[in-house]
């Protein structure tokens, strides 16, 4: 019996945070419902109200978090500065819209099609990997994504992409229609984010992750240990593109319109902001950052209207100034100090206890 205890304890300690967050996230719509006088049954049925509305906002946060997570793997963990990351998201969003609407492909075939497109996209970025490094890689990826940004807006492709208006009316099966089955879509996006997070965490903690971190810190040293860093960087790009592609797919599924904005530099900057707010390279920071990013934008807009963008900008500056490692990064850095303080305290009491005996 007792021999199982350590395993169970370590399992619990490993997934404690994820489990608590998941339970809280699932309970959240019902708590909001109860607070605003809606019964759990009404929340489940997707009746209009506060709970439904906030679930809609949370779905956006989950998708943005998925996207931010994918950027954190490339920039935060592997140390590849890409200014074309929006393309990973936009390829997923546009490919799914075109496959569903113009090609009339079934939902699941479209999903697989998006994954294939995401891999191709990552290989395209991988093509330039061995040739350019650092800021040059950033500029080349910016160039690639700019081409995509221009192409989706071209009038020749208006039939497929909706040109500068955006892609509208992609047919989505009824079972995943966010207007009808809000709680279901909420759970699906939450599940997608959780699975992606757990996979990412496993990657970072595995030997592969150590090489990715080593590459970020000093590629020369990783090379001189005998690692062909190219394959590791390509691996990060492929995993990241798949994740961002799925985020784009989910975006198309639950948004009435996919605007070209999601392919622009602004969308890459959004990813950068989210991981800066949360903490670069921390993974959980990407999720926290996405929540802060979306909620700040929404509530400041609601409370202050036209002056909101200034306030949003000011809050970012404040966050970067006072939390230079981001919310999660700074928390972790202080955890070490807190632990040392606690240890000191314990030792202090340990000595006293011994004296009193």
């Amino acid at each position, binding site marked *: 019996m007792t021999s199982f205890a350590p395993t169970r304890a370590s399992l619990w300690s490993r997934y404690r945070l994820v489990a608590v967050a998941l339970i809280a996230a699932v309970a959240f719509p019902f708590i909001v419902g109860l607070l605003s006088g809606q019964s759990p049954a009404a929340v489940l049925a997707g009746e209009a109200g506060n709970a439904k509305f906030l679930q809609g906002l949370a779905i956006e946060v989950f998708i943005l978090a998925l996207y931010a997570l994918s950027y954190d793997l490339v920039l935060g963990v592997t140390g590849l500065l890409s200014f074309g990351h929006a393309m990973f998201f936009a390829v997923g969003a546009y490919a799914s819209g075109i496959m569903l609407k113009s090609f009339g492909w079934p939902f699941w075939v479209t999903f697989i099609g998006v994954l294939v497109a995401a891999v191709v996209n990552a290989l395209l970025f991988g093509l330039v990997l061995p040739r350019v490094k650092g800021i040059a890689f950033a500029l080349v990826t910016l160039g690639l994504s700019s081409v995509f940004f221009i192409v989706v807006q071209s009038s020749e492709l208006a039939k497929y992409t909706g040109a500068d208006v955006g892609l509208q009316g992609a047919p989505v099966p009824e079972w995943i229609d966010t207007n009808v089955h809000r709680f279901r879509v909420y759970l699906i996006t939450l599940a997608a984010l959780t699975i992606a997070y757990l996979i990412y965490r496993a990657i970072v903690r595995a*030997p592969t992750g*150590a090489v990715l971190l080593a590459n970020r*810190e*000093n590629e*020369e040293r990783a*090379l*001189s*240990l*005998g690692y*062909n860093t190219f394959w590791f960087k390509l691996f990060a790009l492929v995993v990241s593109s798949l994740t961002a592609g799925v985020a784009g797919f989910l975006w198309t599924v639950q948004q009435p319109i996919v605007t070209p904005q999601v392919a622009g530099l602004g969308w890459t900057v959004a990813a950068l902001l989210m991981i800066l707010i949360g903490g670069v390279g921390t993974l959980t920071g990407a999720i926290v950052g996405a929540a802060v990013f979306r909620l700040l934008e929404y509530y400041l807009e609601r409370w202050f209207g036209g002056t909101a963008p200034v306030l949003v900008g000011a809050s970012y500056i404040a966050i970067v100034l006072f939390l230079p490692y981001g919310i999660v990064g700074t928390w972790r850095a202080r955890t070490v100090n807190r632990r040392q303080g606690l240890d000191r305290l314990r030792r202090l009491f340990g000595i006293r206890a011994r004296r009193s005996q």
Partner: protein
Amino acid sequence: MALLSLSEVNTFIDQYHILEGVDLAVGEGEIVALLGRNGAGKTTTLKTILGLTPAASGTIEFRGQSLTNRRPYEIAAGGIGYVPEHRAIFRDLTVEENLRIAEREKGDYAKRKDMILSLFPDLARLIELPGTKLSGGQQQMLAVGRALVPDNDLLLIDEPSEGLAPILIQQMMEAIKELSSDTTVLLVEQNFIVASRLASTYVIIEEGKSVHAGAMADLVDDDETIMRFLGAA
């Protein structure tokens, strides 16, 4: 036959001609010291051997096979370990992860862990700490320890004593002496006393050229050469 030999090696970094004809030979089991003033090209010589700054011309042979035009990870995998200067560990990884990442074959670390920790006992109690929490000397020990994890025939060690307290220099010298019992070492060392106690042969590099080489025992008494090329006696 020498384990490693360089002949007429020229290396450019961007447009700068850094190595202008380096010849050197490292025999199996030897410790060879690469001497010379700051900026003479000692570090570049090591990086050129590893392919990190590829040679533009000349030949580099390791076990009779040419290393020129090979990628750094291929050269490293061929059995050449590298300890870069400035305590080159991975700060975001723990001590154990730093050692484990150097595995070339599964089980390398498990096989050599005890040997490395007996060479550098300090590392044993720091094993779970991240690299950032280590002192300079501990980082240097970790950097050397890391190069011992895989099965290397040759170690390139760059300035192991740099910035270390005298007592740590002593410990580092003993460690290098011990590891050299089954590995050949090419050592870059500014501290002539350290170099002269460890190495059996030397090569002096001056402005990118190898200008002098021989047995360390002869150099120790040759004050004129020491004065001329190393600026110290």
